[in-house]
């Protein structure tokens, strides 16, 4: 059998404006779809209602907001982090809906298996937590607290300071972006692998029917469930790490 390179699973051809900086392909359509879905959810959820118990789409939006507030902001930044709620909520929903498309029939591609959005968001997060740190502590205070964390003996700063410099200012955005991107790539590869395996075994006939029905296909279903969890988890991890970085910049270690 002749398979195209793995990259072909992720690199989709342009649909409109090919060859320009505004070329639109499947990945871009998923980004736009994520924006529209999030907007619709929040528009519908924000309508005035007299019911005491939220239901349906209102419940989805309010659960998301409450989840971000209680499990992300209050756990990492504290009450003063509530001003970042819109940013973190936007980030969570945008990443989640860009991820979850990997298990939606017909679409079947996590937009974050492309590096564009993870890298862009990571760069934005890098910018935000550094600006927050400088505004909260002043430039020199922020640098001092970041590069010379209190605790270790002075002699150890020869080792600690370069590590902190690299980890805080260089590695963080890369780790943030690559974690999300790599998880989505791996998930997509898993689903594609089991889907192709099922189709191939089924096409082979004979024992292949049994193999497809009892091995690869059930495994594909299991993996779809697992990827739904991963989609949520990666959105949560990206968001909570963003909050951790912002919180760390606002409150220097004592």
């Amino acid at each position, binding site marked *: 059998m*002749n398979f*195209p*390179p*793995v*990259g072909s699973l*992720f*690199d*989709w*051809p342009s*649909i409109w404006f090919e060859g*320009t*900086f*505004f*070329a*639109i*392909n*499947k*990945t*871009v*359509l998923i*980004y*736009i*779809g*994520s*924006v*529209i879905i*999030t*907007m*619709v959810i*929040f*528009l*519908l*959820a*924000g*309508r*005035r*209602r007299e019911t*005491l118990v*939220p239901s349906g789409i*209102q419940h989805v*939006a*309010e659960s998301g*907001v*409450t989840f971000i507030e209680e499990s992300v902001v209050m756990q990492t930044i504290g009450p003063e982090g509530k001003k970042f*709620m*819109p940013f973190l909520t*936007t*980030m969570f*929903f*945008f990443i989640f809906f860009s991820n979850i498309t990997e298990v939606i029939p*017909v*679409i*079947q591609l996590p937009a974050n298996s*492309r*590096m*564009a*959005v993870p*890298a862009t*968001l990571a760069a934005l997060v890098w910018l935000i937590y550094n600006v927050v740190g400088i505004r909260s502590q002043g430039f020199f205070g922020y640098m001092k607290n970041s590069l010379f964390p209190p605790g270790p003996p002075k002699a150890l700063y020869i080792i600690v300071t370069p590590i902190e410099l690299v980890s805080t200012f260089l590695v963080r955005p890369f780790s943030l972006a690559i974690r999300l*991107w790599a998880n989505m790539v791996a998930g997509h590869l898993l689903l594609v692998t089991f889907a192709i395996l099922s189709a191939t075994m089924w096409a082979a006939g004979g024992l292949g029917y049994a193999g497809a029905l009892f091995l690869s296909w059930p495994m594909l279903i299991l993996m779809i469930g697992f990827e739904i969890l991963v989609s949520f988890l990666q959105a949560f991890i990206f968001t909570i790490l963003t909050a951790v970085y912002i919180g760390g910049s606002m409150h220097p270690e004592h």
Partner: protein
Amino acid sequence: MTRRTRYIGWALGLGVAAGLFTASPAAAVPETIGSCVFEKLVELEESGSSLEALEEEGEEAVVAFSDDLEKCVEAPSLIIPEIDEIIWGGSAFLVLFAFMVWKGFPAVQGAMNARAEKIAADLDAADQAKTEAARIKSDHEAELAGAKAEAARLIDEARGQAEQVKADLVARANEEVAEMRARAAADAEAARNQALADLRGDVSEIAIGAAERVIRTNLDHDTQRALVDAYIDEVAGRG
């Protein structure tokens, strides 16, 4: 949400769905190694050359064409982000963020706050109602206790009055009995006296008559009467 906003939402949704459908796995045909090699060979022939001609040109031409063919098996980079996707993805996020700051987040947060305030107000009202009910209950209990005390007092008072009435009745009855006894005694005394007087008169008349006939002496009437009275008094003093 107005009807116009809803129509715009539906139109955008349908547009995105149509776009996603056209970009679905069935619609997209990624380039394969075979088709890529085939295209390179076609390009070579269209340029007026051929594999034989390349071999005749020498090793450099063959190596150059081989390098060109190598590109067919090179996978597109997974980790290098595409500029168009960065522009669209980044602007999509910023548009969504702007919308959330402007409308989405405040609306949902407002609804949540309004509900929380309503629940708090309802709890306060329930608390106040509970306090009021407890106050009314204690008032009723106090009134009940007062009524019970009043009833007990009235019963005691009635009992006392009954005792008094009973005592008065008994006393009056005793008085009446005593009075009746006294009256009866007086009546008996008067009757006795009357009887004595009558008897005295009768006896004196009889005695006078008898004495006149016995002694035949003329005594005047007043002397006889005095004599009889003296006799009767003597008899009464003995009796």
